[in-house]
């Protein structure tokens, strides 16, 4: 039997944007087992819900993550609205959808950049982030914040987008789409990238399902599972096609995200075409009494906000289950049997967002 050695990977590692620690058990260059451990940046702010009024907790919920902040706020608001039976105006639902999709665009572009960085393609990384900047500009122009939008509130949204701005956004998306085509072409067709990603970190369909993989990690393995299909916000009124790939390797996960960029653009354009006129918020009175599991699709996968209120202004419990937490077991499965040199690429391929995971 070959001698086994343990190599610690992280919490500080050049490819990791955030701290996660993996103990890699190696036989020669082959990873036999990987043991994850988190907890380097646990903030415990699920506990903060007992000290902040439920209306103010929106701002806290939004700061769960610096990348998909809008969708956190949205999911929390949906949970409260569901408990309190608040009817949100149609226009607000469409605006939420538009911002959600912009968040997805910016998150996927950020990931593509980081991913390019993980296999050593710095130039591509810079290019991905340059396009992302244009998305962030639109976010700032419409909500006032680049990454923390703060535009969702219980009962609607805080900001409206005027008609001319919507038309201009739609036009801008056309040119962004062109740039994206050029960018994704490099990811999907370049020989060196294909060589680096093909058959690396394969996750079978069964493993993806039984380990509870979500989002692009699951869809890359052929599990057609997208929470947007439940039709929350205005997704029910838009035509959405779920992107799936069947190979389950890093290349498939990359392809899913690249193709999702274009579905997002398509969804925004559809939403801009169909958006109705009207108010953007309703007044909410009272306090939530009851519980609900609000679910939505984040760029990284399915997000669950469990909200339990007891009729006072302070909630009893808010539990946030972020997609990265569920994607850790599939990651451990992927790492079993891979080469040591592939570990950084595989870890990055699930789009780990550790701050999210630790709340």
């Amino acid at each position: 039997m070959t001698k086994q050695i343990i190599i610690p990977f992280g919490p500080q590692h050049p490819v990791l944007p955030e701290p996660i620690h993996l103990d890699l058990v190696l036989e020669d260059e082959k990873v036999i087992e990987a043991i994850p451990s988190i907890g380097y940046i646990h903030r415990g702010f699920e506990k903060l819900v007992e000290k902040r009024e439920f209306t103010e907790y929106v701002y806290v919920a939004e700061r769960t993550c610096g990348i998909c902040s809008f969708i956190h706020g949205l999911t929390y608001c949906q949970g409260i609205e569901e408990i309190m039976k608040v009817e949100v105006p149609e226009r607000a639902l469409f605006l939420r959808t538009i911002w959600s999709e912009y968040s997805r665009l910016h998150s996927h572009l950020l990931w593509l950049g980081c991913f390019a960085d993980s296999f050593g393609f710095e130039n591509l990384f810079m290019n991905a982030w340059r396009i992302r900047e244009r998305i962030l500009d639109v976010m700032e122009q419409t909500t006032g914040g680049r990454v923390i939008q703060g535009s969702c509130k219980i009962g609607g949204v805080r900001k409206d987008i005027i008609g001319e701005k919507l038309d201009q956004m739609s036009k801008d998306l056309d040119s962004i789409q062109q740039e994206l085509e050029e960018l994704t072409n490099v990811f999907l067709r370049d020989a060196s990238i294909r060589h680096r990603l093909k058959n690396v970190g394969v996750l079978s369909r069964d493993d993806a399902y039984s380990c509870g993989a979500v989002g692009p990690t699951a869809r890359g393995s052929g599990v057609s599972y997208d929470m947007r299909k439940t039709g929350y916000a205005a997704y029910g009124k838009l035509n959405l096609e779920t992107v799936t790939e069947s190979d389950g390797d890093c290349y498939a996960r990359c392809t899913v995200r690249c193709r999702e960029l274009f579905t997002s653009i398509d969804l925004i354009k559809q939403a801009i075409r169909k958006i109705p006129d009207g108010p953007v918020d309703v007044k909410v009175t009272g306090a939530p009494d009851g519980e609900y599991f609000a679910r939505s699709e984040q760029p990284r996968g399915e997000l669950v906000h469990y909200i339990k209120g007891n009729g006072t202004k302070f909630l009893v419990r808010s539990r946030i289950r972020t997609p990265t937490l569920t994607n850790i077991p599939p990651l451990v499965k992927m790492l079993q049997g891979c080469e040591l040199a592939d570990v950084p690429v595989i870890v990055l391929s699930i789009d780990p967002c550790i701050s999210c995971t630790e709340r």
Partner: protein
Amino acid sequence: MAFFEMAKTALRTVLQRPATIRYPAEPAKKTPLTRGHVIIDESRCISCGTCQRKCPSQAILLQKEEKTWQIDRFRCVVCNSCVDTCPVKCLTMDPQYTAPAVSCGVEIVTITYVKPVKTVDIGETPA
């Protein structure tokens, strides 16, 4: 399968102007909606304390006796909550971000609002 897919983009970027801004020399991008920092019009504040109660990060402290409004810029998360809830709209959001500072501390503003008195003789408009 293709080789040098990136070449076209890379060549074009060499010839283009940089996508970045030379930040301290050139000002940072901002839009009319940008949340930079909160400013108060001390002559209109009625000391109701709504901003303090609605602040999710407890950055604002209003002292009614001393007539001061203070904000800890390092606690403030610039969420716009105080601006939205202020009943007299004396708080506004300035698009300029706060300047970097070398020490923590609070910013204290003395409220100069004088409640208008209704009687004609001694009545005077607030400054």
